[in-house]
């Protein structure tokens, strides 16, 4: 189970399949696999399943928002008592919103994104045979799988899944008497999240250990591709912040089940009476939650940034501009990520002075973010751009990151947040910058590394359709929401008809819902393309289809367990020698020539 064993079994690997794999049973190859590439695919496909479920949930609740007065009898066929008379009930609406958030943030954009690409790319790009601990890596996936099973089962309990929002603020999340969703559904939600934290810690420790210890000869830290840097910082963030969330959950379990008062004080619940708890602080949970919650945003975003940097450079046929500044800005973002959590709490009654400090630190993050954007733009400048589907999604990422990042400057300033907090402006902001942008990063990654994963090509035409519809759709859905937010329209409302200030947006809500359905359909088209291409896609004829410099393309088209059949290639240069000295590209394993210029 140590990597030593893996090394030995794969040293004599030859061609597409080594001896070792011939003896592997179906179970050890596809299910309890310890090959990082297979584990990556497991993360990816599980993540996709969750993405479809989470996306479908948003279609359901958008139906309610867009058509509050229309009855859809088929909804009752699917959801039963949760959609009596063809109307989604408030209970179901809130459960859908909550689960959509939890699933997309944690299962799709954390596990699905980091789990997939950290597993797949770290060993291949740093020149390692596998992860530092393949066994822990396998456990990481299976804890994630279990978390998913528990989360899924919470949807079938009598009182319904948790419905208090993905942030799970107590007292609402602590009191079954305050909301039916906070009964058994919440217990299962916490268990699922606890399992998830274990999964991400096992994964994260492994990624860190691998990057630090298992780089091939010549692969100094400053020669690492930016993807690896990004995944490395992501893992560090996760390892340092998830345990804090975990402790927050432990206290919540105690408050729920063992009568403690960490978060509870002075509570009288309708129909139940006064609770005995005194002296707790409901705000304490928010500190613990956001201490993870904010780094979590970067856990989601950094891998996408890394992959986008890599893909932009490769397809512009030009080095990434300001490599060290890119690494430095990611480092700055990673550090600042830990120092800004309370900007989610400006209106909780936080000490105003403390609020001021968090304003300062929050807006500071805009500086490294700006550096990244301008460096990406400069990377495109005077390049020779190939619009592969991956490249399109990378460009889309930059566009979305700009749009969503700029509204962060609004919300990070407490004197604007005091007005816009928890309105649709916030929904627009974080969906664009974190949700859709990271999703674009993930799509870019999938299109770019699909040939490496499966030895086949995805269909480009479908990729182009997928990109342009999703790109237009993302803006059509979220851009108008800024206006709703500027009218003060609160988020997490089931129905706006009683509100004189907000019911004016009925038509706009309907328009957004229609676009959501179209965009969701196009994602299914992407899945069709993905799964069809695994089986029947064009076989890869070139080992290095994108003419890329990084090491994964020096491995065989179908790398076995151990990645390289012979020696691991040695590295002589950074990953971005594109267009140097008039050469199209110079892979990392090509020695520096005598007449080569320095940069």
């Amino acid at each position, binding site marked *: 189970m140590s990597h030593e064993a893996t090394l030995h079994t794969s040293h004599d690997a030859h061609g597409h399949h080594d001896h070792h794999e011939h003896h592997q049973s179906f179970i050890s190859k596809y299910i309890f696999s310890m090959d990082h590439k297979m584990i990556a695919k497991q993360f990816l496909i599980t993540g996709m399943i969750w993405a479809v479920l989470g996306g479908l949930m948003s279609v359901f609740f958008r139906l309610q928002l867009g058509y509050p007065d229309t009855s859809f009898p088929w909804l009752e066929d699917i959801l039963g008592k949760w959609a009596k008379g063809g109307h989604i009930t*408030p*209970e179901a609406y*809130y459960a859908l919103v909550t689960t959509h958030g939890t699933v997309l943030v944690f299962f799709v954009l954390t596990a699905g994104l980091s789990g997939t690409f950290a597993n797949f790319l770290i060993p291949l790009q740093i020149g390692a045979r596998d992860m530092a601990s393949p066994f822990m890596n396998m456990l990481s996936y299976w804890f994630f799988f279990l978390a998913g099973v528990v989360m899924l089962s919470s949807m079938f309990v009598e009182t319904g899944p948790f*419905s208090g*929002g993905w942030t799970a*603020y*107590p*007292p*609402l999340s602590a*009191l079954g008497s305050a*909301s039916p969703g906070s009964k058994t559904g919440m217990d299962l939600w916490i268990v699922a999240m606890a399992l998830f934290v274990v999964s991400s810690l096992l994964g994260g420790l492994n990624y860190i250990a691998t990057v630090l210890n298992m780089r091939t000869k010549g692969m100094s830290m400053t020669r690492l591709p930016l993807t690896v840097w990004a995944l490395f910082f992501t893992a560090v963030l996760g390892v340092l912040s998830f345990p804090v969330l975990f402790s927050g959950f432990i206290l919540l379990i105690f408050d729920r089940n063992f009568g403690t008062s960490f978060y*509870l*004080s002075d*509570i009288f619940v309708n129909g139940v009476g006064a609770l005995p708890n*005194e*002296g707790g*602080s*409901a705000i304490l949970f928010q500190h613990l939650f956001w201490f993870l919650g904010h780094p979590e945003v970067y856990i989601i975003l950094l891998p996408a940034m890394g992959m986008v940097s890599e893909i932009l450079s490769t397809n512009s046929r030009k*080095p990434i501009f300001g490599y*060290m500044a890119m690494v430095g800005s990611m480092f700055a973002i990673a550090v600042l990520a830990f120092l800004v959590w309370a900007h989610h709490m400006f*209106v*909780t*009654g936080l000490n105003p002075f403390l609020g*001021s400090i968090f304003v300062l630190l929050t*807006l500071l993050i805009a*500086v490294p973010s*700006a550096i990244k954007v301008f460096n990406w733009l400069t990377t*495109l*400048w005077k390049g*020779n751009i190939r*619009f592969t589907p991956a490249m399109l999604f990378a*460009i889309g990422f930059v*566009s979305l990151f700009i*749009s969503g990042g*700029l509204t962060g400057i*609004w919300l990070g300033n407490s*004197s*604007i947040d005091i*007005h816009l907090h928890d309105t649709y402006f916030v929904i627009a902001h974080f969906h664009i910058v974190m949700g859709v942008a990271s999703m674009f990063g993930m799509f870019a990654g999938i299109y770019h590394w699909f040939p490496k994963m499966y030895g086949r090509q995805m269909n*480009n*035409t479908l990729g182009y359709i997928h990109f*342009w519809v999703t790109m237009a759709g993302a*803006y059509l859905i979220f*851009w*108008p929401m800024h*206006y709703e937010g*500027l009218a*003060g329209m*609160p988020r*997490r409302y*089931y*129905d706006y008809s*009683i*509100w004189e*200030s907000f019911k004016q947006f009925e038509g706009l809500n309907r328009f957004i819902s229609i676009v959501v359905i179209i965009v969701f359909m196009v994602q*299914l*088209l992407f899945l069709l393309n993905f799964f069809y291409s695994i089986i029947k896609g064009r076989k890869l004829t070139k080992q290095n289809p994108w003419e890329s410099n990084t090491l994964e393309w020096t491995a065989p088209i179908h790398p076995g367990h151990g990645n390289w059949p012979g020696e691991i290639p040695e590295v002589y240069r950074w990953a971005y020698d594109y*267009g*140097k000295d008039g050469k199209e590209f110079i892979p990392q394993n090509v020695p520096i020539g005598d007449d080569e210029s320095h*940069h």
Partner: protein
Amino acid sequence: MTMYLTLAVILLVFVVIFQIAKASEYVAVLKGEEQNRKQTNKINGFLMVAFLVLGLIGVWYCNKLYFSKTLLSIDAASIQGEKVDLMIWWTLGVTGVTFIATQIMLFVLAFKYQEKENRKVYFFAHSTFLEVLWTSVPAIVLTGLIVFGLKNWAFFTSEAPKDAIQIEVTGKQFGWIFRYPGKDATFGKKYFKVIDPASNSLGLIWKDSADLNLKDDPFSHDDIVTEGTMYVVKGKPCKLIIGSRDVIHDVGLSQFRLKMDAVPGIPTTMWFTPKYTTEEMKTITGNPNFQYEISCDQMCGNGHYSMKGVIVVVSQEEYNAWLAKQKPYYFSAFPEKAPAEKAADATITATATTAVIADSAAKK
């Protein structure tokens, strides 16, 4: 039936798109990869510019349709709100210019540098000047916004003026309870364990209780408690002392551009000075049904979306008239004590003159 029909149509569209895509792949293979890449590159390059142009038109059009529905199109209804709006305009100016400039750069660069035969790429990996430039310019601009923002923040969170009307706001699933301190200008103490939804919704301490170690607090006897609607005075600062009876709620005052959480066990405060009466706002907004709404802005359970309160802003005279009509909450719990009103009043007024007016509201 229509459902199945819709599904069938969607499926058909899927199949058609898929077949076209497959066919285009065969064509690509026949034409050769290079040739094909050139062609798709041209199309996507064109789409980049088309997206930019249509996108910017879309931004303009969206603004045309919806700007008048946002609060920025009307004057803020509080002096705090004016500052929030000004802050938004400045930030919009800075981010708006950046947005348009960078988006244009992104799509135009993508279009302009699409793959062309014979183009030599410019090997440009690093430039200290440029990197310092776009580190320092954002830093300077942001410093401006931070200073401006914190100045306002300090004002919003400052102590309310001494003459402010004090109102206690308590959230509960799913509604708002308001309390005025009454003639003595002092809130009586309360304790959550004596809450009785029927007669003592806030748990005012107006009875001795040996079990809970509580003593009747006479300050509570003249407190006025209302539900759903709150009255404040135009031009007069109003301080809210905010709390919650059960879970976390949030007092969202969009026309005043402020909000503050209502947290059980931890009182919070917020103050503002209304600029327009409700009647005046009806004219300003052109909406005869206009009302200042308090929206709950923190997820508080399945009735969250219906947790609405109303603020009525009136002139001082109207306010006085309204206040005079209000009966202390004490008498609805103890109707038999109502005749003793006069005597109780006298003692309370006497004590009130020496009493320090403090945020004794939620303290037990």
